[in-house]
């Protein structure tokens, strides 16, 4: 009898399974992603909601302290504000600077060295790394499976209560892959809804002539890998992309990051060595070690930037901050109070 009941419940569950489809927004003038990361993982409101809960859940880490969100903070465009390296399990530091997370549907390779080939398998790295979340998939599933809230969310997202690694990873990919940034002042200027002040407008010209080759609009990156002439950090040696490709020509190459939200994703570079954008510009116009054999051909002569250009460029870079994304409830912790310190009159 109970068997019959269970079967019919499943049948009913199946019939009732109608998740709400969501579409990735492709802003006007943007290229289409070269690969559809949601091809085998249709984006739905329920899938995103589940992914968001997982993203903010410390239980994905060994001691419960390190959710994805602990190193990827919304107010920092999902980078780790003011941390060159992040804090992980058992007082460890991570090996590299936590990257910002947005517009990932346009990024085919994840990590500073591009070692991750699909957004769905990316979380495996921080989850299992002993200096980061230090947990196993088995343990996470054991923690999630008895949780009735998760049973409901998995059912809503995938049609049954089955909680396995594939569903968990697909849900996380739906959430992180749907974080989009296209509402900065720059975007509004492009749409004709705002205008640059004089300094920003000059800075935009400087940007287009000196930065746009690598940090190409509208994504503000080509997602290419390059050696930008950072001196070798002997205390944290990291040869970058060569570790993945085995090709010596890829030594000290790292992914070119997007400049969107750059004002709040400090510190900068794969090891977080620069805390200010002034230092970054100083690097490109002056301090760079451009004699390394694999330094990018575009940087062999460094970049000539005058003091006035530097000031204007900084003004422009500040227009790339997307307050709407940083404050959007779409991306915020579902368990957090609505307004932490607001007056209740």
């Amino acid at each position, binding site marked *: 009898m109970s068997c019959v009941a269970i079967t019919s419940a499943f049948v009913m569950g199946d019939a009732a399974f109608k998740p709400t489809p969501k579409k990735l927004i492709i802003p006007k003038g943007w290229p289409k992603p070269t690969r559809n990361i949601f091809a*085998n993982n249709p984006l739905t409101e329920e899938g995103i909601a589940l992914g968001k809960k997982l993203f903010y859940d410390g239980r994905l880490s060994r001691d419960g302290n390190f959710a994805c969100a602990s190193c990827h903070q919304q107010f920092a465009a999902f980078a780790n504000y003011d941390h060159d390296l992040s804090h992980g399990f058992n007082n460890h530091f991570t090996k590299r600077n936590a990257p910002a997370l947005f517009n990932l549907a346009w990024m085919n390779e994840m990590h500073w060295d591009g*070692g991750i080939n*699909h957004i*769905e398998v990316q979380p495996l790295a921080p989850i299992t*790394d002993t200096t980061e979340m230090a947990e196993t*998939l088995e343990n996470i599933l054991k923690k999630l499976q008895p949780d009735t809230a998760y049973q409901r969310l998995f059912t809503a997202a995938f049609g049954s209560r089955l909680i396995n*690694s*594939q569903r968990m*990873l697909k849900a996380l990919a739906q959430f992180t892959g749907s974080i989009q940034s296209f509402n900065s002042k720059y975007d509004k200027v492009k749409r004709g809804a705002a205008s640059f002040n004089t300094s920003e407008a000059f800075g935009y010209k400087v940007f287009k002539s000196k930065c746009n080759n690598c940090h190409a609009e509208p994504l503000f990156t080509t997602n290419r890998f390059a050696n930008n002439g950072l001196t070798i950090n002997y205390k944290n040696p990291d040869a970058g992309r060569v570790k993945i490709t*085995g090709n010596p020509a890829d030594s000290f190459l790292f992914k070119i990051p997007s400049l969107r939200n750059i004002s709040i994703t400090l510190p900068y570079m794969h090891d977080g060595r620069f805390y200010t954008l002034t230092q970054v510009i100083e690097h490109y116009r002056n301090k760079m070690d451009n004699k390394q054999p694999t330094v990018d051909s575009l940087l062999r002569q460094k970049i000539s930037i005058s003091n006035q250009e530097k000031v204007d460029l900084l003004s422009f870079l500040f227009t790339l901050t997307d307050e709407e994304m940083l404050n959007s409830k779409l991306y915020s912790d579902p368990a957090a109070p609505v307004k932490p310190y607001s007056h209740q009159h």
Partner: protein
Amino acid sequence: MVSMKITVLITIAVLYLLQLPAQQHKPGMLTIQFKNTYNGQPVQLYDSLYSNGMNEQFELRKLKYYVGQVQLAGNAIQPQYYLINQQDSASWYFTIPVNPGKYEQLSFLLGVDSSSNTSGAQTGALDPLNDMYWTWQSGYVMIKIEGTSPQSTTANNKMEYHLGGYSGPYKVQQRINLPFSFGQLLHIQPGKNTTVTIQLQLEKFWQQPGVKNIAAQPVCNTPGLLARQLALAFGHLFSIYHTAQPAQ
């Protein structure tokens, strides 16, 4: 009226004829069993000290590898993957439907194809839970041999071969073709189960070109030339051991 009757009769006859071959082609079942041996005896994890023929001894802790995309000539490739894990006897065999007929050879992919390495989170045998997925660089460890050897120069005398890499010149996945000996073709009969046992003779690993002694080469855990060489060597260890045909 007459012509209509004829039409109906012809239609029925055609449908009947179409159905005949379908009945004859009721699939047979093929069970493939992997028998991992060392000098003819089943491989023992932990308990046995083996000699590799190079004056070195070792104990095994893990022996796992992926097989998939099984094919008999004239049949569609079976898309499934299986993880053969010496630790788990239930993983040593699997059964697939195949068209009846006589076959000269069986082939399978040793490893995991490129597309399954690049299309996101997988499940079943390919679930990253199975301890066969790299996290720092996407892709499957396709063959895993782990143990200890007093001759190994690494910490804790580890001997560890994690062989993977799915693209480029150093990809390790490879198709293994195993012929059935003359006069002993694989005969698949409709509705019946035939079992083919494939032997992996692990002791021959150290006799293959490209495989050095453990002291010189105790570890391989990144894709590259060494992984490719060791995986090709591993691919040479398989042969048809036995075929159990059902009674006629």
